[in-house]
């Protein structure tokens, strides 16, 4: 059975565990962790230990991985398709001059060359590709696999790479904490506005509704481009991807680049003047009309039912 290394870093979470699931479909999985992290249910864990790796340092991490790969020669190295996973793996690909297939959703490894499917356009298109390389490098598209759950302690092997101090040039040197309200990514309901909201002030009603429901406010790119909201609130291909229980899209047309950011929502409610807008025809529920009349009426009704008025 071929050996597959899965890089999980120092904070293995749900997405990293999904990468392990994909690894299992390809061979026997050995996790590569930074520091004293362990993962139940695997045969082997490589614990990479080096003072330069005490905080995130993509170049140095890739150098450590390159040394481990050179020594152990696994068939593949896999990571999660997160910001860090993609970054570290691209460094590894550059160091070893190997191709990297990012954000894959499935692999057929029955031949020397692997046939795989990866996401394009932030998830609105799939690409079938052939990957030919001595060691295959992949990152796994988030939520394309179930999470891995196993039990039993793995054998932990410490690996101490040699890393030149100069590689610390790309390393976190400081962290700044910003106080934030309910986060867009974890909010159960997101009240989101597009061009139809018309102004920065227009978002006051969306804020009110979000507050009443314990949710967060989101927006489309037109809104951030107009300076009505901060880019932190933008949902979509070049913004944030979210999966709330309910997404309320107010005055958003439903362009594909916006849709890929919220298509994982369990339910979508569209509020739009145009009954043929793609957001309306793809939504579970819709209210047709002017959001400036509809939203205040909803806010009043919620307050009334909550006994706030």
């Amino acid at each position, binding site marked *: 059975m071929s050996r597959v290394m899965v890089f999980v870093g120092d904070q293995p979470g749900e997405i990293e565990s999904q990468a392990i699931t994909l690894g299992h479909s390809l061979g026997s999985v050995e996790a590569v962790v930074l520091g004293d992290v362990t993962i139940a249910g695997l045969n082997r864990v490589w614990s990479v230990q080096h003072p330069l790796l005490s905080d995130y340092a993509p170049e140095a991490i890739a150098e450590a991985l390159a040394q481990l790969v050179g020594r152990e020669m696994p068939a593949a190295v896999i990571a999660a398709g997160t910001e860090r996973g993609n970054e570290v793996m691209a460094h590894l690909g550059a160091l070893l001059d*190997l191709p990297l297939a990012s954000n894959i959703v499935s692999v057929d490894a029955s031949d020397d060359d692997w046939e795989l499917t990866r996401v394009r356009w932030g998830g609105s*298109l799939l690409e079938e590709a052939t990957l030919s390389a001595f060691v295959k490098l992949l990152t796994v598209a988030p939520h394309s696999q179930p999470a891995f759950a196993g039990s039993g302690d793995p054998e932990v092997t410490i690996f101490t790479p040699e890393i030149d101090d100069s590689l610390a040039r790309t390393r976190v040197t400081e962290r700044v904490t910003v106080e934030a309200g309910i986060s867009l990514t974890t909010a159960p309901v997101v009240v989101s506005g597009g061009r139809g909201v018309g102004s920065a002030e227009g978002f006051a009603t969306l804020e009110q509704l979000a507050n009443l429901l314990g949710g967060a406010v989101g927006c489309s790119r037109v809104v951030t481009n107009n300076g009505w909201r901060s880019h932190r609130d933008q949902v979509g291909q*070049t913004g944030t991807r979210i999966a709330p229980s309910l997404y309320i899209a107010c005055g958003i047309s439903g362009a594909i680049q916006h849709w890929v950011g919220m298509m994982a929502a369990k339910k979508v409610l569209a509020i739009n003047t145009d009954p043929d807008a793609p957001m309306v025809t*793809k939504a579970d529920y819709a209210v*047709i*009309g002017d959001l400036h*009349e509809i939203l205040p009426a909803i806010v009043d009704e919620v307050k009334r039912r909550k006994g706030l008025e």
Partner: protein
Amino acid sequence: MRILTCVKRVPAPGARINLTEDQRAIDARHLSFTVSPHEECAVEEGIRLREANGGTVTVLTLGPAESDEQLRYAISVGADTAELILTDGEEWDPQSTANALASRIKDLEAEGQAFDLILFGNESADAGGYQVGIRVAHLLGRPIITGIKGLQVEQQTVVARREVESGFEVYRLPLPAVVAVKEGINLPRYPTLPGRLKAKKAEVANLGPAVGIGGGLQMRMLRTPKEQQTVTTVLGRGADAAPAVVDLLAELGLLR
């Protein structure tokens, strides 16, 4: 400061993506073209740094002859010079793209000085490989950081901020360096009339690639993911729909 920004021409699909008959590209007959929003911000960031520190901004792309349009857009908002590495239209894989870009950058630097800062988008809008910038940085032997939403140049150091859930992380890279930026780092300006005139008249250096295609990742075919068919329940029209909406919120357990 000598600054270089790399951009890629891509179609701008609307609500749905249609493919060509051979399923190897997006049917762009009725579409306009653009660059990734991250790259628009990379162009803007380069121009702002030049305005603050003096110097020049060069834009570079590898693509078909039509990519001229994206280079001229960059000039219309303030870039000084533009370079096109001409291909026959087929998309190149990330390794080959990076080799060709790095090779042209080395040529440009041999003619003049090294670029202090090379800017990329965090990922291309279409391929989204998250790697061309990192590969170019390695080929040039320079440090790179990606996912950047804040940039400052302090003497020989670039201070870069990356947004994370709790706030942001700070990186300090020695120049010359490479940075891949994300939308949100700035608000790109619109072209001005004089800018448009300058772009119309500008000369775009247009050369074939010095190195060929041949990476280990080859795209075979594109397909659209299966779309769920949803039946939309219209809850009503105008303000009168409010009670029905709130019934729904209650049903979904959101009225606590």
